[in-house]
């Protein structure tokens, strides 16, 4: 029982990281139909920036802010330079474009930060044992901050005018334009959100899971699977998908075989795409946020 709880808890904190990255996929996809393969790189870049900022003497919170801000800038630049100029954006074109950006970012990170994997100092080092289950404080931070960010994004879409405008673009692009909502601006906002949540995920995950120039690939793939579990259009679905994936991975590693850990995500992906392409948690709406 203690083992089960331990595995589930570790899975939840890992899943929270996937969930944040999944939110980034959803934010961009709903507004512009773009599947952003550079989403994982946002997280890796944020981790590396935070590590080098902290290494150069900045206090941890400041380093985190610098990391999130620089990744937000990268995301906005990416949208302006690579996404916005394309006249007829299809999902296929977006895949090729963002794959290019992702490869470029990876090469840049390798050049600047070198090939070694490193970890950021934890916000609170150490941990505590509750009923036999050992909990790292950083994992609590991951869960808490990821929860807050997810709530904030949810609140933004449901309660603010700008958020409602984004949802309008997602549901009825033509009608949205008729009432004066700029699609370009909406797409820019979506990328800004994607950059921020990706960066937060990267900074949070770094102390526990470490960051290297190539850690974005796995994070991005897992985040994409999590988003797909929610049908790629729902923030709530993305969060649940991320947590579910994290827990399933850890249970598989603990009870079946550690070699299968990374296979779980892709087995799930195939099952979901064949059986419930609109997502496990989704109702039948095509464009929800």
């Amino acid at each position, binding site marked *: 029982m203690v083992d089960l709880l*331990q595995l589930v808890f570790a899975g939840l904190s890992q899943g929270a990281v996937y969930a944040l990255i999944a939110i980034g996929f959803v934010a961009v996809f709903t507004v512009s139909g773009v599947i952003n393969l550079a989403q994982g790189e946002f997280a890796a870049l944020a981790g590396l920036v935070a590590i080098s900022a902290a290494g150069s003497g900045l206090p941890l919170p400041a380093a985190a802010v610098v990391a999130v801000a620089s990744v937000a800038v990268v995301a906005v630049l990416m949208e302006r330079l690579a996404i916005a100029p394309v006249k007829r954006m299809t999902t296929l074109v977006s895949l090729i474009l963002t794959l290019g950006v992702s490869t470029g970012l990876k090469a840049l990170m390798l050049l600047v930060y070198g090939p*070694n994997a490193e970890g950021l100092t934890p916000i609170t080092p150490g941990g505590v044992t509750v009923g036999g289950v*050992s909990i790292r404080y950083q994992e609590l931070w991951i869960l808490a901050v990821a929860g807050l960010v997810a709530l904030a994004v949810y609140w933004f879409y449901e309660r603010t005018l700008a958020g409602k405008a984004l949802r309008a673009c997602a549901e009825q692009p033509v009608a949205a334009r008729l009432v004066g909502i700029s699609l370009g601006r909406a797409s820019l906002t979506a990328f800004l959100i994607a950059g921020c949540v990706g960066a937060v995920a990267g900074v949070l995950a770094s102390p526990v899971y470490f960051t290297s120039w190539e850690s974005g690939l796995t994070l991005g793939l897992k985040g994409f699977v999590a988003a797909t579990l929610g049908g790629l259009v729902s923030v709530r679905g993305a969060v649940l998908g991320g947590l579910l994936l994290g827990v399933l991975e850890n249970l598989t590693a603990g009870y079946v075989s*550690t070699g299968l850990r990374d296979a779980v995500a892709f087995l799930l992906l195939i099952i979901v795409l064949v059986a419930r392409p609109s997502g496990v948690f989704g109702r039948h709406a095509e464009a929800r946020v």
Partner: protein
Amino acid sequence: MSRRTTRARVAACAAALTLGLAGCAESADSGGDAAATDESGPIRIGAVLDITGAGASLGVPERQALELLAGQLEAEGGIDGREVELIIEDNQSTEDAAAQAMNKLVSQDQVDVVLGASRTGPSLAMRPIAEASQIPMISLAANAAIVEGSEWVFKSAQNDRVVIERMVEYMADQGWTTIGLARDASGFGEGVQEIFDEVGSEAGISVVAVERFAPDATDFTAQMVNLRDAAADVNVIWGIPPAAGLAQRAYAQLGITTPVMQSHGIGNQVFLDTAGEAANGLVAPLGRLVVADQLPEDDPQREVITSFIEDYTAEYGEEPSTFAGHAYDAWQLAIDALREVGTDPQAIRDHLEGVQDFVGISGTFTMTPEDHSGLSKDALVLVGVQDGDWTLLPDQGA
């Protein structure tokens, strides 16, 4: 490719051009092709290292060590007036890229000796190419399978078997009989359990639980929970940093108090940085390099190790790891052979096989036709971690 290689290449091209012209002038009586083959032009040494990917913490210091040594040799004027060109390839810690790089070095660059790879898997992928093309290769990796029955392949890192012999001795001293093993799922960890059972059988030591982790894994909760449940006398974590360090951290985090031993795969600062306080108390058989300052005055390796540490630290501002040491040994073995017998592959191979009492960083090498690794368990000392630093354990027979 590194800057030094590029520079070396430009120089080599210039040299080749000059020689080529000279060759033309002479070709009338020397019969053409002689200039293109053996005994003139630069000597080429290829290296295939795990510079990016899971093996980066091994490959990067290895590259630095090789570049340092190549620079020193260049300053000395090469071997018998011939320039030595070092060509370094990154295998991205993958088997297929290692095989590709090996092919390129052998067929395109026509190197005389190949060093690498850093890890077992990529080294095993390179081995058949070395054997088929009959080019001597010196691997920097651990698993004895790399050189078992090989003709053209040698290695400079201590065999996993001698490491395990050292560990089993220590376990027997401590009265431990059951081992919980968490091992690298790649080539490095292959066969470890079997060797433990075989070497330990006399002392009644056996492995009771095995967990695996990918060399680039980041979460170890599942494996460590299972080790905890196995309740062995001692747990062995067999991997390379950063994975080995993260595993050690997860182990301490779960509050497991069973003693831990690690392999010789952890001999670098990255491990200490990654594992942090969690590393305190662990014991591992490592090369003497990490405890150089604690070695007795009369240690035969002391001088070689100390001067390497000085040179390396002066160049890079950080201390070398044991992996840099493996690269140093492979380089010196190759250079020694090239100095003695020139660039004929068969002669190099025969010379390497006959190496006797060659004092290096990882130990004193004595190769035989049966043993292309050349290091016995005396090449390792038991090292503990205390207050975040390596400490030579007292009372060692060797």
